């Protein structure tokens, strides 16, 4: 096939073949990323706590930290990342077309997405579920009272599907108003176009601050779906997939082993347990197996921090407790495969 492609390139001109050649053949994502010197990371268009840019264009958030972790692992520099804000609708096409190298944008891992879109989920960095927000004045206490409601949400999301399922399963009718961008969803809900705003519960907490009177709204207690959110890569590049997966695992394992950005430096001089020694690259060849420096995880922890540090800096301020996102050893379900 390649020979034909090259021949086509030669005769039919670069114009026709360029799109088809853009990626997939030969060059691995790692090689491409190294060549350009940074990672292109797809994030949301502004979801405080997960991926959000401040006035001077600095991105912060749990999802942003994941991309920074991969940059730290690959380049030893957590700033070697460029961010592409994407709407829910654009995100998979942006990844499939090679515009971005990682999608780290509160994206739910579902079977369809994993099997039919040509994508792979590299893990879960936040266990979430879909919730609903209503104005307190509506006097509603349960989602089962919402028959006939107008509901605002984002298009191109699992949210649309779950809410439809929920209303069908309960024999209720509703009208869905689905916007491309979250800001418009919030503005429309705020203006009274909809009775209900539905999205991931983390999203509700994050967007709530954008309402004119955040206190006159309440989140209903029902959680109507499972939303395991995690980073996504293109299918067919196992090396890159491994790098992203283990960057996340390194952050979680670091928390479990009590290694933080503050104390990781000390592991160089002090005696450490074998698990820690493997994590920080004093023992074993784990970095090389990924095609990276042996200090890959050390750099992640040093520059970005472990999972708990990232969570506390970004998500805790939204008022979201660790809950199920605590380590398995602390009563949560966060459980990373060991580095050995």
């Amino acid at each position, binding site marked *: *096939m390649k020979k*034909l*492609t090259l*021949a*086509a390139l030669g*005769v*039919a*001109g670069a114009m*026709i*073949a360029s*799109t*088809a*050649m853009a*990626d*997939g053949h030969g060059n691995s994502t790692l090689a491409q990323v190294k060549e350009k010197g940074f990672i292109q990371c797809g994030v949301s268009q502004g979801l405080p706590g997960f991926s959000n840019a401040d006035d001077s264009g600095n991105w912060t958030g749990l999802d942003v930290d994941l991309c920074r972790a991969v940059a730290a692992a690959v380049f030893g520099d957590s700033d070697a990342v460029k961010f592409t804000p994407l709407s*829910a*609708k654009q995100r*998979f*096409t942006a990844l*499939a077309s090679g515009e971005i190298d990682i999608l780290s944008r509160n994206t739910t891992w579902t079977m*369809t997405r994993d*099997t*039919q*879109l*040509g994508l792979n989920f590299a893990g879960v960095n936040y266990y979430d579920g879909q919730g609903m927000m209503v104005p307190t004045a*509506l*006097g*509603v206490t349960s989602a089962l*009272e*919402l*028959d*006939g*409601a*107008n509901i*605002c949400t984002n*298009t*191109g*999301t699992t949210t*649309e*599907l779950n*809410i*439809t*399922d929920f209303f*069908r399963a309960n024999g209720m*009718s509703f*009208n*869905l*108003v*689905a*916007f*491309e961008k979250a800001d*418009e969803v919030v503005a*429309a809900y705020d*203006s*009274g*176009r909809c*009775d209900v705003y539905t999205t991931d519960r983390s999203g509700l907490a994050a967007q709530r601050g954008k309402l004119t009177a955040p206190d006159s709204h309440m989140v209903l207690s029902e959680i109507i779906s499972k939303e395991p959110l995690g980073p996504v890569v*293109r*299918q*067919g590049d196992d090396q890159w997939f491994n790098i992203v997966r283990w960057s996340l695992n390194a952050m979680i394992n670091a928390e479990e082993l009590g290694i933080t950005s503050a104390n990781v430096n000390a592991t160089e001089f002090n005696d450490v347990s074998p698990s820690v020694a493997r994590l920080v690259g004093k023992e074993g060849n784990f970095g090389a197996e990924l095609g990276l420096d042996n200090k890959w995880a050390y750099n992640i922890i040093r520059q970005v921090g472990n999972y708990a540090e990232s969570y506390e800096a970004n998500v805790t301020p939204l008022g979201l407790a660790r809950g199920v996102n605590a380590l398995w050893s602390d009563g949560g379900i966060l459980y990373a495969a060991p580095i050995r």
Partner: protein
Amino acid sequence: MSNSSLTSLIYDARLRGYVFQFLILALIVFGVWSLVDNTVTNLAERGKTVGFGFLTANAGFQISDTLGTWAMDYSVGESTYLDVYFIGIINTFLVAILGIVGATFLGFTIGIMRLSRNFIIRSFATVYIELLRNLPLLLQLFFWYFAVLRALPSKREKIDIIPDFISVNITGLYLPAPVVESGFIYSVIALGVALVMTFIMKRWAEKRQLETGQRFPVFWAACGVLLLLPLAIFAMTGSPLEWTFPEFKTDGPMLRRGFQSGTGMVLVPEMMAVWLALTLYTAAFIAEIVRAGILAINKGQTEASYSIGLKPGLTLRLVIIPQALRVIIPPLTSQYLNLTKNSSLAVAIAYPELVSVFAGTALNQVGKEIEMIFMMMMVYLTFSLATAAFMNWFNARVKLIER
């Protein structure tokens, strides 16, 4: 000898022409083939297949109540992605056609106002054009949408435009809805027959006038036929058309107050905002085209028309506009095409047109980028070509017949 015949072959311009044409054709075919093949290979590498099988799968998401969902009788879990495609097409065409009609009327009005001798009218038109033409359409779309939302009363209140018939609040404009019963089709057929009869009558009247000089009141006769025939059939088949009226509740649980779904017809604010924005924006361009068209007509035409006693209004209608149309129609066509394509911006404010509902929501669920974008492009292409064909036909009709 063989040498010289070869040379003559090489210098044979016609043969050379064929050879080059063949080579170019071969290159194009090869280019297209390798592009397709390459794409399929690339997709296969990612575990994706190519095909349109997904169209028969059921769509699992709700779509906002619009003409499309009503026409396709959309129901989650039963309707397919193909239905979603048609819903998108219908909704796109709806705003495109409404927008074209609105923008044409408004554009002609503003364009003529711009040439008015009255300073206030003229300045208003100028300000309108400069303002709307120079602000990005997306911005205007947001402006109108949120302006519309802010201006309307909440879901539990309403403003009556015609009490019990037409009312409006933030969830939309509510109108009575016709419910067609069996037998209504005969009235529609009657209308078709009446149209054909009118056409034949007009032909006959023209011919008679040419031959005998006698005139026939075609207009009144046509009105009579067009109204009476369908109405008679309608009455004879037992008036098979019911109306349902929007029902508004002011008691019961808070959530259930307001207009009750399933009663009457609703035009959602998203649609009204898209229509408004497309109309106002495109009208500014059309106004300039109309102005240019009118100015292109020699001043002598106006003077000549005044000199035979026509008033300014009639001069405009009978002398200037018909001639100006020749200049106006080609750029007007481009504006119609622009408007149609611009309607895809409606995704930003949740109007379920083609780009939003098919290339957005549905695409995200099934991930067939290539197939779905292709299907979407075909719609815009077909619509654009059809518009262009119609306008070319119209242009040919109005163009100056030189004598």
